């Protein structure tokens, strides 16, 4: 389908930008970037956070004015800059990651409200809205109950509603910003089908995604940005995930599985028949000193619930947890921390770190007792503790008192790891430690994880990205519907075999 578009209308791009420059406060956000989209094409825009993807989209949609010299051709017209009005009128639509929908309103209202705004006689024609919404959904090949409030639907279906709304605006070019970030694999497949339908009906789609497997699956061409500059435009055929990563980061990564001999290492954690009905059932596992145990599986497989139980924040219904040879029953996570268990939350933004507060405060919060002198917080001890971790983990910060939210995802995650290392844990549970972390910075996080394991820490690494656990764990457990359904040794089992089992 996309190939036909390529052949048929290859002579005239739908959108073509040349010579795009943007500067924010002395920082060049875009450096002489050019970008081209063909009619009906699925085009991927790839790049790390801060590479200029969002800025480029905002130039195209008229939110930002590019510097003089910019040339924008869209649908047969030339512009030196876009405005939001011309972009909308020309059929350019953006579906942002947060969707900008109204959860309390019905599907029909969410899709079609723009058609009734401002028209005389300022009354809402619900029948018309329902008709418009249904036909937009039909174009996507989807049937939803348009009279139901949106919050009844799962996130994947809300995504569809956002796309349908874009279609009502007679879209010719749709930008999708990380559309699959919060979807499970089957929901993602569903969404990718929708994108194919859209492309077949002649709408060009620009796909922005961190998940490189999807990029390879859906798009016909990839434009790669790095540090605000254009790296190149590549046909998807012939690209691999690792090649895109190299293009995005400008670095090459060495992929090899771990080979550590841990047979003689003492067992730190031994879990036997642990259950919480409705969350997980009959989970048994062991982690040795110096070992990284990977747990993978789809969202909702019970991984986080299991981790929170090991961290004392939920109580098991049955089963036992033995830590360093002692049977433990945690009343709260304070008991778990005291016993040497640390848990890095999957939700760094709202549970892992206290975003508005200072970097230093976030780092010492779990180990305040260590910086007390005579019952009072010693600012000298605090500073030296913080400086020590900043040095050891290679964290890049401005000032210790800056809010943690000013740091990049990778540096924030390092602070979160430091916060737990400061409690002298024996068992560190890392729940999705690379969510929202750039591809380049992920390698740095895993370097730290590997060094920690070598220094004798027992680590549980939870991730829904199979390659992450494959390359960074000594053993991999596959969890599905609350049960452990498979155990693999990277190297002995292939990555492909595990991926097939997990995503089946």
């Amino acid at each position, binding site marked *: 389908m996309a190939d036909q578009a390529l052949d048929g209308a290859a002579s005239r791009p739908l959108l073509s930008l040349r010579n795009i420059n943007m500067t924010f406060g002395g920082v060049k956000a875009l450096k002489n970037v050019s970008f081209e989209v063909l009619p009906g094409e699925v085009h991927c825009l790839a790049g790390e956070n801060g590479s200029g993807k969002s800025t480029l989209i905002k130039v195209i949609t008229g939110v930002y004015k590019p510097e003089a010299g910019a040339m924008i051709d869209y649908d047969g017209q030339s512009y030196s800059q876009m405005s939001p009005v011309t972009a909308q009128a020309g059929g350019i639509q953006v579906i942002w990651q947060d969707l900008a929908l109204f959860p309390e309103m019905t599907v029909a209202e969410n899709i079609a409200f723009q058609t009734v705004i401002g028209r005389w006689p300022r009354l809402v024609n619900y029948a018309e809205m329902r008709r418009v919404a249904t036909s937009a959904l039909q174009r996507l090949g989807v049937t939803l109950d348009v009279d139901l409030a949106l919050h009844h639907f799962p996130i994947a279906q809300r995504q569809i509603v956002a796309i349908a709304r874009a279609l009502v605006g007679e879209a010719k070019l749709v930008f999708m910003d990380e559309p699959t970030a919060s979807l499970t694999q089957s929901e993602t497949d569903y969404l990718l089908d929708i994108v194919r339908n859209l492309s077949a009906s002649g709408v060009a789609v620009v796909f922005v995604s961190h998940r490189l497997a999807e990029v390879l699956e859906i798009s016909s061409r990839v434009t790669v940005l790095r540090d605000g500059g254009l790296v190149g435009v590549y046909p998807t055929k012939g690209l691999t995930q690792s090649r895109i990563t190299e293009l995005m980061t400008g670095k090459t990564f060495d992929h090899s599985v771990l080979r550590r001999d841990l047979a003689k290492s003492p067992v730190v954690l031994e879990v036997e028949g642990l259950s919480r009905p409705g969350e997980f059932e009959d989970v048994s596992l062991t982690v040795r000193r110096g070992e990284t145990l990977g747990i993978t599986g789809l969202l909702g497989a019970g991984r986080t619930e299991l981790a929170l139980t090991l961290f004392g924040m939920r109580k098991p219904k049955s089963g036992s947890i033995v830590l360093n040879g002692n049977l433990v029953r945690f009343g709260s996570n304070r008991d778990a921390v005291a016993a040497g268990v640390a848990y890095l*939350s999957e939700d760094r933004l709202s*549970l892992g770190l206290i975003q508005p507060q200072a970097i230093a405060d976030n780092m010492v*919060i*779990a180990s305040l007792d260590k910086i007390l002198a005579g019952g009072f917080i010693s600012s000298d001890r605090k500073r030296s503790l913080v400086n020590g971790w900043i040095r050891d983990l290679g964290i890049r910060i401005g000032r210790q008192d800056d809010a943690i939210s000013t740091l990049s995802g990778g540096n924030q995650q390092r602070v979160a790891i430091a916060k737990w290392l400061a409690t002298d844990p024996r068992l560190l549970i890392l729940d999705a430690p690379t969510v929202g972390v750039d591809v380049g910075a992920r390698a740095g996080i895993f370097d730290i994880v590997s060094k920690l394991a070598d220094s004798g820490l027992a680590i549980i690494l939870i991730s829904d990205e199979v390659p992450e656990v494959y390359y960074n764990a000594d053993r991999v457990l596959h969890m599905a519907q609350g049960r452990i359904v498979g155990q693999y040794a990277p190297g002995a089992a292939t990555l492909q075999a595990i991926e097939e089992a997990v995503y089946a």
Partner: protein
Amino acid sequence: MTVWIERARNALGPELAGPLAAFVMVMIVFGIAAPNFLSRATFGSVAFQLPELGLLTLAMLLPILTGGLNLAITFTANMAGLTLAWVLQSQGGVDAGIGAFVLGSILAIAVGALSGLIMGLVIAYTKAHPILVSLSMMIFLRGLGEFLTRGGDVSGIPGFLARIGYGSILGIPVPLLIFVACVLIWHILLTRMKLGFNTYMIGSNIEATRYSGINTRKVQVLVYTLSGAMCAVAGIIMLARFNSVRVGHGESYLLITVLACFLGGVNPFGGFGRVIPVFVALVVLQLLSSGLNLMGANQHLATAVWGILMITVMILRWLAGRLKFLNTNRR
């Protein structure tokens, strides 16, 4: 030299700039407009009026920092004052001794702390909104107090209490000494103690704080208990100054304490705010009303000017924020 300035700024917080600017402005404007403003009399009246509002503001500050509110502060103060008054009455009324006063004060503080403890427990365990919980406590205390006093005054206080209310040590009014001591205790609590640290963290994100292994319920309970105890100190000072207690006395201070916190740069949603800027803000509010008094303005007009000052401060903060935005971008 610059190191010391930097250190001072770090210790006091960036919130101090606003109140300090307002302080300088008030001094200059009234210094010019009212020739007798820069006199002992002005500062004497400020020194005697400041503590009541100030102590209640300290009681309001801790809950606000956790992202909550304590609307029961004035009636908790009344209740504590009543407790002390009853103890003194039972020990001979005007003839009661120092021992009765000490015992009464301890009981008064216990009553204040109990009011806070109950609110703290309810807020921490039921997760009910602090506004609703403290509003309920406020109504309860008011009703209880009016029932017990039949709506009248409780008086018959020994004479030596006036020396606490109006006396001076080395030229400094006793209520001011007590207030300054409380300011220092709060400052140390918030900057140097675990409870203070956790108070700020809870104010920004209570769930993330809990995930960090902090007993957030304990922190909330302690914060409201301390808030209640501080109300009691205010109640004792009020009793010493008015020579009697009446339920409802000081009621108008309630919202002023919230304003004073915000004028002092405290974040209305919690997590940020320091004691010293709030102290300066309180001084500014008192200077303003004393200055207007001197110029012969009506007391009600002074209240109106407080309102105008607050609105001006909001607008100035917004402007300052925009300037900062330009500055960081130019770099």
